[in-house]
């Protein structure tokens, strides 16, 4: 029995049996969801810096606060949005180390005086109450993590390497670990309501991100993971990659639609006019087509600044040429088709003719080419970023995928220790490009009019 299928049904059937197209769509949906959702739901933002966590490999934990945080009762605190939105914050902070310095003068290898500031001592014990001890000799050589010891007037210094006869002055530094602080902050509507330090109510508090030993927000852990590691400033690469994706995808789509518009208009007019005008207009595109455009794009960006508008101008100028050729080719072919005459004779209105018989046939190649132009534009943008010509908007650098990849390449150095900075942004970008290219190819195979 013969079943009849509409062209759209045939297209669907072909599409769902095209493995590459399916893989491509899957990739695109995954990246698309990431780019749309992750910046929305992520508890941290791409510009928060954490200097003490710079260059952390993927998997490192970080607390959800800023580098410096300040809370004052009945005031809007200076901290990250995640802390502002919490109802209660419980912090365990490492106290600052207290450092005491003892100056020891030696004669013939034996201790003559022990001084701390202006006070002189006969005997000092580092056995208890100190977390670590270090010694510095007259040459500036520092030895850290000495075993606990006692220094006494008239004795030799307790550590063998210090018993050199030529030593004259030694400095001992003893560090006392301050006890950890327990801070509980109650918040209401983004305003700080009460602060407690070790159980006592206080008016204000401020702490550094690096002091945090434990953080709980509304009873839940306030720690997050650097899924993709962090950069030199301790920014979360995971969030940056998906924010960058927004920029790259937006740039790709906009430039593509600009070229689509110009190309369709130019090509359709040329094909519609035909004859001398057609030849002239196409000769013009032929000349432009022959130019090594990437050279001109680089020059344009170098000479006229790298703002977004210039970028669209430069890339739009390249991409519309192919679009114009495709559109013109389609119009020229379709204009003389018999089936149009047949449709016209069987009473189709002009409206019907255009939308039922002309547009669907031009649409195929145009959709395919549009899908294949987006990855080209994304690639060109990142190519320019690689050359150091990162695009800007309102004098602000846009951290697109290209910019992140460029940073990763620069940080590769000679040993590739920080390769996550290159591999993660590059992987996400390549997955997107593979998705778009596979989808474009799949669409071309499925929409191919020859095989209908």
């Amino acid at each position, binding site marked *: 029995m013969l079943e009849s299928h509409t062209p759209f049904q045939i297209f669907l059937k072909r599409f769902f049996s095209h493995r590459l197209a399916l893989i491509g769509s899957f990739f695109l949906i995954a990246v698309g969801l990431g780019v749309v959702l992750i910046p929305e739901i992520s508890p941290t933002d791409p510009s928060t810096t954490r200097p003490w966590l710079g260059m952390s490999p993927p998997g490192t934990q970080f607390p959800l606060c800023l580098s410096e945080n300040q809370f004052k009762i009945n005031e809007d605190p200076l901290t990250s949005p995640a802390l502002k939105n919490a109802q209660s914050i419980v912090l365990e902070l490492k106290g600052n180390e207290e450092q005491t310095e003892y100056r020891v003068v030696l004669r013939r290898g034996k201790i003559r005086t022990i001084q701390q500031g202006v006070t002189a001592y006969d005997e000092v014990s580092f056995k208890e109450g100190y977390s670590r001890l270090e010694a510095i000799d007259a040459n500036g050589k520092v030895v850290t993590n000495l075993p606990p010891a006692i220094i006494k007037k008239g004795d030799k210094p307790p550590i063998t390497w210090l018993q050199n006869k030529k030593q004259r002055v030694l400095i001992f530094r003893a560090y006392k670990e301050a006890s950890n602080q327990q801070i509980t902050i109650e918040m209401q509507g983004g305003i700080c309501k009460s602060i407690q330090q070790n159980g006592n109510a206080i008016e204000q508090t401020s702490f550094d991100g690096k002091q945090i030993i434990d953080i709980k927000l509304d009873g839940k852990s306030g720690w997050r993971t650097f899924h993709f590691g962090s950069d030199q400033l301790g920014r979360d690469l995971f969030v940056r990659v998906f924010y960058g994706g927004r920029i790259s995808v937006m740039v790709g789509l906009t430039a593509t639609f600009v070229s689509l518009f110009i190309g369709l208009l130019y090509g359709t007019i040329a094909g519609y006019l035909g004859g001398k005008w057609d030849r002239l207009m196409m000769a013009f595109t032929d000349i432009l087509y022959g130019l090594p455009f990437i050279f*001109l794009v680089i020059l344009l960006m170098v000479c006229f600044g790298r703002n977004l508008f210039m970028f669209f101008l430069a890339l739009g100028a390249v991409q519309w040429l192919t679009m114009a050729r495709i559109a013109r080719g389609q119009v020229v072919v379709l204009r003389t088709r018999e089936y149009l005459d047949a449709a016209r004779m069987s009473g189709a209105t002009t409206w019907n003719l255009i939308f039922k018989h002309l547009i669907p046939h031009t649409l195929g190649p145009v959709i395919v080419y549009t899908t294949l132009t987006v990855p080209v534009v994304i690639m060109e943008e990142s190519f320019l970023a690689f050359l150091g010509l990162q695009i800007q908007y309102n004098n602000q650098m846009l951290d697109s995928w290209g910019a992140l990849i460029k940073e990763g390449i620069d940080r590769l150095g000679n040993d590739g220790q920080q390769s996550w900075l290159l591999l993660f942004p590059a992987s996400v970008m390549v997955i997107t490009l593979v998705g778009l290219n596979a989808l474009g190819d799949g669409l071309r195979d499925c929409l191919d009019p020859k095989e209908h």
Partner: protein
Amino acid sequence: MLQIALRRIALAPITLFVLVSFTFLMIRLAPGGPFDGERELPPEVIEALNEQFYLDKPLPKQYLNTLKQAITFDFGSSMKHRDRTVREIIREHLPNSIKLGALAISIAICVGLVAGMTAALNANKFGDWGTMLICVIGISLPTFVFGPILQLIFGMKLKWLPIAGFETPNQIILPAITLALPFSARIARLARTGFLEVLKEDYVMSAKARGSSMARILIQHVLPAAVRPVVSYLGPAIAGIVTGSLVVEMIFLIPGLGREFVEGALNRDYPLIMGTTFVYGSFIICSNLTADLLNRWLDPQSRGAEE
């Protein structure tokens, strides 16, 4: 046929003229001058420099001078390295770029043809769409990502090959592979289409029926017909290799012409920009023209079909 060929040939110098004019306009109309970045030069020196590089003349005169320079292929001396002429720089750096490009295109053709043939012979099996998936990845992997990843794996982690440089033969391997990748992928896809079409032809069927061996059929009947789409792609491929070499030369620190162009552009070294753009432009235009004419000559259908 002859008319079309002549028209194509006539279009080439026009394209080159447009290129030179565009480049001139862009670098001269841009705000700022080439000596802005240098340490406080005394005004007399700047004046002398402007005179030396023809920058004190009115714009139309400068333009005519640039055209003259392009025709005589004498762009004067570089603005940053004033002791060297642009011609010397090109003569010194172009051979490296050509060496790299030639090796890359050879790799691309060999790998592409073999991969395309494998895919076609396994049509619709795992080997086919697996190869096609690799091809899509190859096309989607930008040179400036693939290059550093190769450096990372083979240069830094495994330490098999040097990371950069261009003195010893093993330093050319990674850059050539990097440059060849997207083109091998594209050639493989074209070759696959070509092979699939030819394998369906009656004369291949009859050769099979006659009992010729598969290898003989492939070499004698299939290969010559199937490479036609590949040949038609060579023009764009060469142009693409030229563009790609810009990146590859930057990544692998190869003293080629592409790096000179990028550095010239970033330094606003006008004569160097003009010279390198002219060389690359004429090369790309010539290779496109040759490929175009070759295609028309090879493909009897298009010979009759045009107008």
